[in-house]
């Protein structure tokens, strides 16, 4: 179980990590060639007008002053105003966050659920021809880039068979009053199928391989022999005794995967014209839209840090032998 001292220490560590990341982000983006002026200052206007615009965005201030203001704002929950969109960063992120999360979470959950089960099965039937065929298939899926799978699925099912839309998250006439209404609609789910499949097919290989190797290790443990000696049904031995113990690294991997999910799959979002955060991160970085680029990466960092913590907590519930308050 967790004690308060550990929790406080862990939270403090998370805070420090977050502060360091935010600081690095601030200075990193300002090292990129070019600057935000392309989107702030009209071409051909006199020098004094250009300077006035730059000044209005505070970009004429010394870097340390900009940094202090930025840090102060971030810790007050203000991510600033996008140079490119001329809107609060939080609004832009909000629009795209849900699209990406729904896409990625669905794909990852599907991949990890199916992958964990298949990995356990492959370990259970180790040495058989079925396992060998299964491993070839896994390696094949794992080595196919997600965007390539996406293009293939798009070509076959959307363009040739016309069973699915070519891209986007909604039909041309679809209109939803709420985000929830959109995500629960048949139209949205119809748009979701191909991108989810493209990502899931790529992701599924990792949990299969990880689960299989963990299971192979666990299957040599004495408690497995004991369970079998006690006459426990094979399926129960596999799922309750072996798989439950083999699943711990899967939980860690899943936690990290969820953390990075916010970054989306840029190429998949491009192939399927999915208006998500992944593409926005890349575009914002390319445009030197500091506030938006920083905002998206801050969100990503926060997710990774907190999901790691959640994975650690989940350990204690999955394996009572794990104690988080030990040095």
């Amino acid at each position, binding site marked *: 179980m967790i004690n308060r001292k550990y929790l406080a220490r862990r939270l403090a560590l998370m805070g420090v990590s977050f502060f360091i990341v935010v600081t690095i982000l601030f200075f990193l983006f300002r090292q990129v060639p070019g600057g935000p002026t392309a989107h702030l200052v009209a071409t051909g206007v006199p020098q004094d007008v*250009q300077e006035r615009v730059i000044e*209005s965005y505070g970009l004429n201030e010394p870097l340390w002053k900009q940094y202090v203001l930025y840090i102060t704002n971030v810790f007050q929950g203000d991510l600033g105003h996008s140079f490119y*969109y*001329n*809107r609060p960063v939080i609004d832009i992120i909000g629009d795209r966050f849900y699209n990406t999360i729904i896409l990625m979470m669905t794909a990852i959950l599907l991949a990890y659920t199916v992958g964990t089960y298949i990995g356990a099965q492959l370990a259970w039937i180790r040495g058989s021809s079925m396992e060998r065929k299964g491993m070839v298939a896994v390696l094949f899926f794992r080595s196919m880039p997600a965007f390539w799978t996406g293009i293939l699925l798009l070509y076959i099912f959307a363009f040739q068979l016309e069973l699915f839309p070519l891209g986007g998250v909604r039909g041309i006439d679809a209109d939803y009053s709420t985000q929830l209404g959109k995500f629960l609609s048949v139209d949205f789910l119809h748009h979701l199928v191909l991108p989810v499949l493209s990502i899931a097919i790529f992701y599924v290989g990792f949990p299969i391989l990880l689960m299989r190797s963990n299971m192979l290790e666990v299957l040599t443990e004495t408690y497995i022999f004991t369970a079998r000696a006690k006459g426990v049904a094979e399926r129960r031995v596999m799922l309750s005794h072996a798989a439950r113990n083999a699943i711990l690294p899967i939980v860690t991997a899943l936690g990290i995967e969820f953390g990075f999910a916010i970054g989306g799959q840029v190429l998949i979002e491009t192939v*399927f*014209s999915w208006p998500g955060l992944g593409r926005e991160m890349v575009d914002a970085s390319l445009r*030197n839209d500091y506030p938006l680029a920083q905002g998206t990466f801050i969100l990503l960092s926060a997710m990774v840090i907190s999901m790691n913590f959640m994975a650690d907590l989940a350990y204690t519930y999955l394996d009572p032998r794990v104690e988080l308050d030990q040095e």
Partner: protein
Amino acid sequence: MATSRRKLLEQIGGAGASLGVVSLAGCFSGGEDTDLGNREATADLPSEARVEEMTHYTTTEAYWSERFHAVQLVDQRLTEHLGLPVEPKGLELSAWPEYQTEGRFGFWSSNWSSGDGDPDSQLMDTFTTDAGSNYWRYSNEEYDEIAREQRRATDPDERQELVYEAQRILGEERPESQIVYNYRTHAINNERIDEDSVVLNFMGIRNIWNLVSMEPLNDEGRTIVTNNFDPTDSLNPLHQNTVEALRNVWGVELTHDYLYQTDPEMNPQPWAAEGHDWVDETTIDVQLRSDLVAHDGESITAEDVVFTFDLILETEPPIYTNIVNTVVDTVEQRGDYEVRFVLGEPYAPFITSTLGRVPILPKHYWEEIMADTGNEDTPWEISFIDRDLVASGPFIKGRWEQGERLEFDAFEDHPFAAPNIDKRIERNLASRDAEINALESGEYDTFETWFGSPSDLNELAEENEHISMVKHLTDTRMAMWSQCERKPLDDVAVRQAVNTVVMATQQEIISEIFDDIADPAYSPISPSLEFWHNPDTPVFEGGPEAAVELLTDAGYRWDESGHLHLPEGETVN
């Protein structure tokens, strides 16, 4: 000479890699195998006279592959024929201002358009000594005077002579070498839209005359679904991204009325105005139509026009600096439907470039939203993503899910330009391939913008009966500018030699890269601006031999590896 597009692209693809190798080889070898053409090699040239490698920047290959390949080919020829070490490089747009303002380049390539059919911006904004966009640092007092004079010349014939003369000087001095005059290529679904009703102008099908006159052939054609190469992100008519960036300008033009609009023949035509009278060289009275009405039913009168210009004069949105703030002194209402403009000094492009580019903002609406948002001093910061946009143009802003879909509904009560279609929907797909597939399958009705290869559209139209490709010569030229303060490009002879090589490469670029959908270019003013284009603009021909001759006559020399060196007594630093 390349025998096919594929072969040519393979060749120039390897050019970048080979350039570095050639440069290195020049450093370490005697260069016995180098084909010097008609260049004469001189032994033991001083290293400080050796022309340094320079970068030729343009947009990335992903942004516009044709332009990138054209630049590659030109650079390859410059290196090959003149021994001028030029390296092509694609640069993200966000990095452009820094490199341009600091002059960190040898050559720069992009496209430039008047935006309204008047030559003034082409001559003034990029070539006069103190111009904000004169990144090439070209300076010529005689030229400056002529360019300023044409701006003041309110008599068209007198102004034409000055515009011709300005082109002559630019042609002679060659701070710019034009690569091609571009066409805009578009596609339409001819089963839903009557092809004969399509009106083209210098913006292709993306012009207000077309959007209001396009005839649907059936119910499906009443809603036009179209693309945009980048999702629209701003609809505020005072924000620079809205007025300047191609992905956004269209939204403002659809929703707003202007006093004048440039017609398909490139002439300013009264739109919201009935006409105008020049009282003297700096005073102009404009009569407004009396039947204009805003989207919310309120009448549009002279008060709204005065409000618009006063708002710009008082708050100074940067984007209107050059066409309003530095031009207009005062605006005065002289009746319900008459406005008097007083200019600081004579400004010939006033009708086209000012009255034709400033949208009329309804006073009652803008006063309200500026008060609501607290943006009285910075109205360009107001976002319209989650807000209605009330204006008086032929279309009304509808639903907008930024990055996914942007709708414009026809304004049926528009007094003289009510559209024939019901709705225009801009839907964004993230790749050219997806766009092609969507047009083919009927999800798109038109391509309003096409940044892909023209030959892809050609092919698409040939393979699909329901798709027609339309093209129109724009007033845009793709060009390369020399950094005129950098050796050896500060020498007119070198710039003329560069122009000679570009001219010799032009036809290959047109046929192999643009599939013949481009015209040879030689002046900054396109022939599509018929009245202003000087067909006798000086141009340097004769191929690589003539270019080498120009350089030889100016004292330039080459070493055994064919590398260009400055004339005797000159050093690079």
